[in-house]
Structures are given as structure tokens and as C-alpha cells.
């Protein structure tokens, strides 16, 4: 029984692992998800700065300057994400 059970496990594991090798998938030309996440991170930084300003950690002038800088970085990252990195 133990041998039969193990052979069954071996068969299942072997068949499942080798499935991609028997039928190689065609690689799709998907954009690098990392670029999109980079853009999302830049947008989060803009929101973080807003919260920092709202909680008194940045003066209005400091926030204006930082916000402009962060938004420029976010737009740049979004452009790169749109063009697939």
C-alpha cells in the first residue's frame, strides 16, 4: 500500500512539474509590473507629504516645494509605466 501510494504521489508530482516542459507557453509581451508599482509608490509619496503638511510637520512653503517635486517625479514614473518602462 505504501509503495502504491508513493508511486501515485511520484506520478502526480512528475506529471504536474513536467507539464510546462511538455507544452511550453508562448511568452506574452506584458509590461514590467515593477514600473507600474514604482509609479504607485510615487503617488503614495505625494499623499504622505499631504499628511505631513496636515499634521504640522511641514510649513506651507515647504509643502508647496516638496509637492511640486514629488508630482514631477510621479508624472515621470507614470509616463514610464505607460510606455512599459
Amino acid at each position: 500500500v505504501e509503495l502504491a501510494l508513493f508511486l501515485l504521489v511520484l506520478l502526480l508530482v512528475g506529471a504536474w512539474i513536467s507539464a510546462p516542459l511538455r507544452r511550453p507557453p508562448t511568452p506574452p509581451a506584458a509590461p514590467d509590473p515593477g514600473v507600474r508599482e514604482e509609479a504607485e509608490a510615487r503617488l503614495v509619496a505625494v499623499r504622505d507629504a499631504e499628511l505631513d503638511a496636515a499634521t504640522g510637520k511641514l510649513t506651507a512653503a515647504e509643502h508647496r516645494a516638496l509637492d511640486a517635486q514629488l508630482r514631477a517625479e510621479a508624472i515621470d514614473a507614470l509616463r514610464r509605466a505607460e510606455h512599459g518602462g
Partner: protein
Amino acid sequence: MLDFGRACLLLALALAGAGAVASAYGAVRARAHWQAAGARALFALFATVTLVVIVVEAAFARSDFSFRVVAGHSSTATPALYKLTALWSSQEGSLLLWVWLLSGWSSLAVASARRRTPVLAPWAAAALLAVAGFFLALMVFLANPLEPLAPAPADGSGLQPLLRHPAMAIHPPMLYSGYTLAVVPLAFALAALVTKRVDAAWVRQTRRFALGGWICLTIGILLGARWSWTELGWGGYWAWDPVENAALMPWLTGTAALHSLTVQEKRGTLKGWNLSLAMGTGVLALLGTFLVRSGVLQSIHAFGASTLGVPFLAFIALVLAACAGLMLARQQLLRSEARLESLLSREAVFLLNNVVLVGMAVLVLWGTFFPLISEALSGHRATLGPPWFARYTVPLATVLVLLSGLGPVLAWRRGSLRVGARSTARPALAAAAVVALALALGAGGAPHALALFFAAAFALGAVAQEYWRGARARGAATGRRWPAALPGLVARNRRRYGGYLVHAGVAVALVGVAASSAFQHVRDARLHPGQATSVDGYDVRYVRSTATVGREKLVLGAVVDVRRDGRHVATLRPSRGYYPVADPAGAGTLARWFKGESTSEVALRSNARWDLWAAVEPDLQPFQSMIDGIDQRFPLADASMEPLFLRALAERYRLQPLPASFRIIVAPLTSWVWTGGLIALLGGAVALWPSGALAAVALRRRSRVPVPVAKAA
């Protein structure tokens, strides 16, 4: 099922090897189908090791002593829960648990990475499979949990008595989860270096695993400390023991990494530092396992010395060499894209906190390995005790807590002295008030504790201020009052406000550590029933002795009455449990109960202000003649007579007024250690919980997006 389990273990080793090769080949040649096969080998490895765990656990559950590991670590008298947890009390079982957890976390990480960071996934899978392969090889060749025992004995040796504690059922899986989760960032850091993708992609992929590992290590450390306080009977929760330090080191570097990874995510800086931290934490996790399992350093927690030291050290050296080699080869890529813009910014404080945390980790590493270092240099093994560790770690911990209050009140990137001074004024005032209160209560004699109280009050004040300011700002934006706005604020910024809770928890815990260490009162006394002693104003009277006979152990104890100014405070019942040795023929029917293991059952009364702790060591000398007499008069006594003798002995212990040695401790604020730990864990859970944005991203990904292929490095 022994043979089935052994075959599955071999299959798991084969899967680790084949999967690592397939993943690496697929990555080098940019072959998607080989990468997919490698990933599937990892998932199959987890399934196969799960089968092995089920086989071994089933053997423990049904007390199948034809498994050597079951016979050596369980018995028919072992309670059902401890039969299942006995798996990780053994060397072999620990390794099995390690691989099982590693393969589980690795499967999760690689499944996610195949969609999010497809370039890194195959290399990370190869690294994770290689680590799993090493541990599987250890099991197959050196410490097999499926070793047969023939002929199978009628009963097993039983579980080590000290491990029969609820905390010990959860403590090892938590520590091992922490260690194995720390290997995931190590694997992705190696993958980032191999593929030259040293941007924040690997950070985003592994941050949650790093945080999960930190939470598990925190739970493991807290449970270990709690077990030490309530079970070991020496009167402390932290002894700077090598096994404790083994968990603390990756916790320290892991904490540093959680902060600096955030800086890289937000600023693109600290690339090389973060890679080093992730790899260092992973290596320290391997080193931690090595310390626990090798028996190379003496520890109160080491339950199984072994011969695994040499292969473990060789493997750690190999991993270190791979890390160092890749770092050197890629040093040109590790320059930061951005610079530190202000010394009064949050990232500047994060950097400082990293220096302190890594400094503490190096210190603990040096102190832990000092016995080996001193032996190698002078031939004499010298150890560094708690005073040495405290001398350096207490000031560093104070600075760390102060920084944990300073970070939250500063902004990312920008900061000015004026805004900084305004933000720190209230927390500083709160801290000064707390110090004044402590001085009024007579804490002036412990300047280190006072400094820590100041730092902790500052941190707690800063966190409270941040919650209040944030809720007020959110309330203003949403038209709600600030208490109603608070949940929304936390839900929108889980990492930030979860992190603040962690800071508050650590501050509370360290206040408990400082107070319970600096202002603890200990009294060791030998008392007869009716006699009393006093400790820190408490009158402690030994009222009477107690004795009970159980199936597994004989328990001799005491009833202790505690009063203050004549008023009853508590009745404590400390005791000591005696477990018999397995071979009655060699030791004597009655004597065998006193030649085996014995454990202290601590009596504890705890509240927010103090812990009253008592342990007892019965004086067995007067019983020796009775024990020897019975064993001599009834040399052929069988098992059926044993309960009779034990009951007679217990009865005599209850009636005869014998002295006993007591250790009584009054330790202020000890419960703050556990409360602080729970607050920190709550904060960790808040930070780990997926935010709305992440949930939406996850929802998008649930739609069948095709898996991108890693291009050749």
C-alpha cells in the same frame, strides 16, 4: 507509513535539487517553461514535505514507537497536545519543521513574484530551493526524522519536562517562521544582485515577508521570555543566553531593514545598505538555527546537542561568500539615485536608528560568540554575562527609543529646526513630567532606568500626538470629529500608524524591562512551615507543604501567604515537579522519581504595578533514608506498588514539617513587558494588513494576467 515518509523525504530532496537547477537554467536562458517547472517544483516540494510532516505527526499521535524520533521524545503518558508539539523538541523534527515552513513561505513568495517581479522570481526560487535542499540533505543523511527503531519499545522516553508548557507549543514554530521568512528577502536580494535589478522592485516584493518574519520573531521572543519567567525558576525572563541572542540578532537587523527598506521605496536611496541588511538578516537567521541545533554554545534552551555544526558552518560560509561576491561584483550599481536632503528628515532618523540597531546586533553577536573567540585565541573559554550586555545595550536601547519618538514627528525629505522644535515640545514636556514623577517615587538611584523612562515617555507622547494630529487633520478633511476620523486615518495609512503603534509597544515594553530590572527585589530564604521572611515590604509566610502524585510526575510544593502592613495580598502555591527516569531497574522504584528531570512550577501574582514571583526547592535530604529504605526492602516491587509508595511519600511530605528553600521576587512593571509586546504585535498586524489600495491591486491581479517571462540576466 515509515517507508512512505522516507520515500517522500527523498522525493523532496530530489525536487529541491531539480527545481533549483530548472529555475536557474530557465533564468539564464530566458526559458519560460523551465522557469515554470522550477516554480512548480517548489510548490510540489511544499506538498511533499507536508506529507512527511503528516506521517511523523500521525506517528506521534498514535504513539508509534517504531519511529525513533517518537520513542525518544514522547510516551503513552504524554498529553495529546504535547504529543503533537513534541515533533519540534527533537533535532530531526526541528529540521523538518524548518523545511516545511521555508517551503511554504517560499511558495507564497515565488507565486506572488512570478506576476509582480518576474525577472527576480526564478533566481529567488533557485536560491530558496537551494536552502531547502541543504536542510533536506541534513535530514536525509544526518538527522532523519523517519529513522526506524527495531524492536519498538513498549513506551517512549517522554517529552522533556521543561517543554511541557503551552508557550513551548507555539514558541518554536514562531521562531522558525521568523527565521524562514527572513530567508525570503535574502533570496530576493541575491536575485536582485544576479539580475542587476537593484531598484526597489525586490524591496516591494519582500517587504511584507520581512514584516511577517519580524512579527513571528517578536511572538517567538516574547513567548520564550514568558516561558523563562514562569517555568525556568531562576527568576528572570532574559538571560542573554546564546539561544535567546540567536533570535534577537535577526530581530534587530530585521527591524533596521523594515525602516531602511521604506527609505529605498520612497527615496531610491540605501540600495547597497538594504541588500546587505536583507542578506545579513537571512544569514543571522541561518546562524540562529545553527546555534539552537548545533550545541556549539552552552544554553539553558539547548535541548539537543548534535553533530550538525560542521555542515551548518560550511553552508553559512557558502551563503556569506555568495552574498559578498555578488555585492562586490555589483558595487557600481549600488550608488543611490537620491541624497539625504535634510538632517531633520524622517529618513535621517531612520538611518540613525539603523546604525544603532545594527550596532546592537554586532554587539550581541560578539558577546554570543565570545566564548568561542576567547577559546580560539587563548585556549580558555570565557563568557560574557548579563552585566556586560547590559552595559552597552541599555544606552543604545535608550537612544533607539528616543529616535522612535523623533522619527514620527518629522516629515519625509524636508524639515526645519523651528518645526522640529514645535513638534517635539509636548512629548519632551511629557517626558520631563514622567522623570519628575519617577524621582518623586524614589527612582533617583537608577540613572539608566530614568533615562529610559524619559525616552519612552517622549516616544509615547510623540505617538499620541501623531495620532491626535492625524485624526484632527482627517476630521477637518471629512467633516467628522477627530475620534470618528481615527479609524479612517489608520485604514488609509496602515503602515505609518501601525508602525507608530509598534514604537509605542516597544517603549512600553522597555519601560517594563528597565523597571523590573533596576527596581527588582529578590529574597532567597530557607523556611520551615510557619516561618516568614520579608521582601520589599511584603511579609512572606510559609504556611504549609503540599504534595500530589500524578501519572507523569510527583509534585511537592508549598502554600505561601503574602501580606503587606498586615493586609492579605496573595496566596502563592509554588511547587516542584519530579519526573521519573525511564529505567526503574537501574535507579530503584522510588529513587527513580528523584533521579530524573525536575521542573519548577512558579507561583505568580501579577498586576499593572508589580509581579509577585515565588519558586520553591523542597529539601529532600530527610527523605533520603525513607526512599533508600523502601527500595532496599522491596527490591522486586513492580509497577503496581509504585503508586502506593509514592502516596506514602507524599503523605509524609504533607505532614512532616520540613524546611524548603524559597526564592521570592517583587518585580515592578513586569507585566508592561508583555503588554508592550502585545501592543507592538498589534501595530505589526495593522501594518501588515492589506490597505484598500493593495486590496484593489490584488483584485486586479486575480483576473488571469499572463505570467511575464524573466529575461536572461
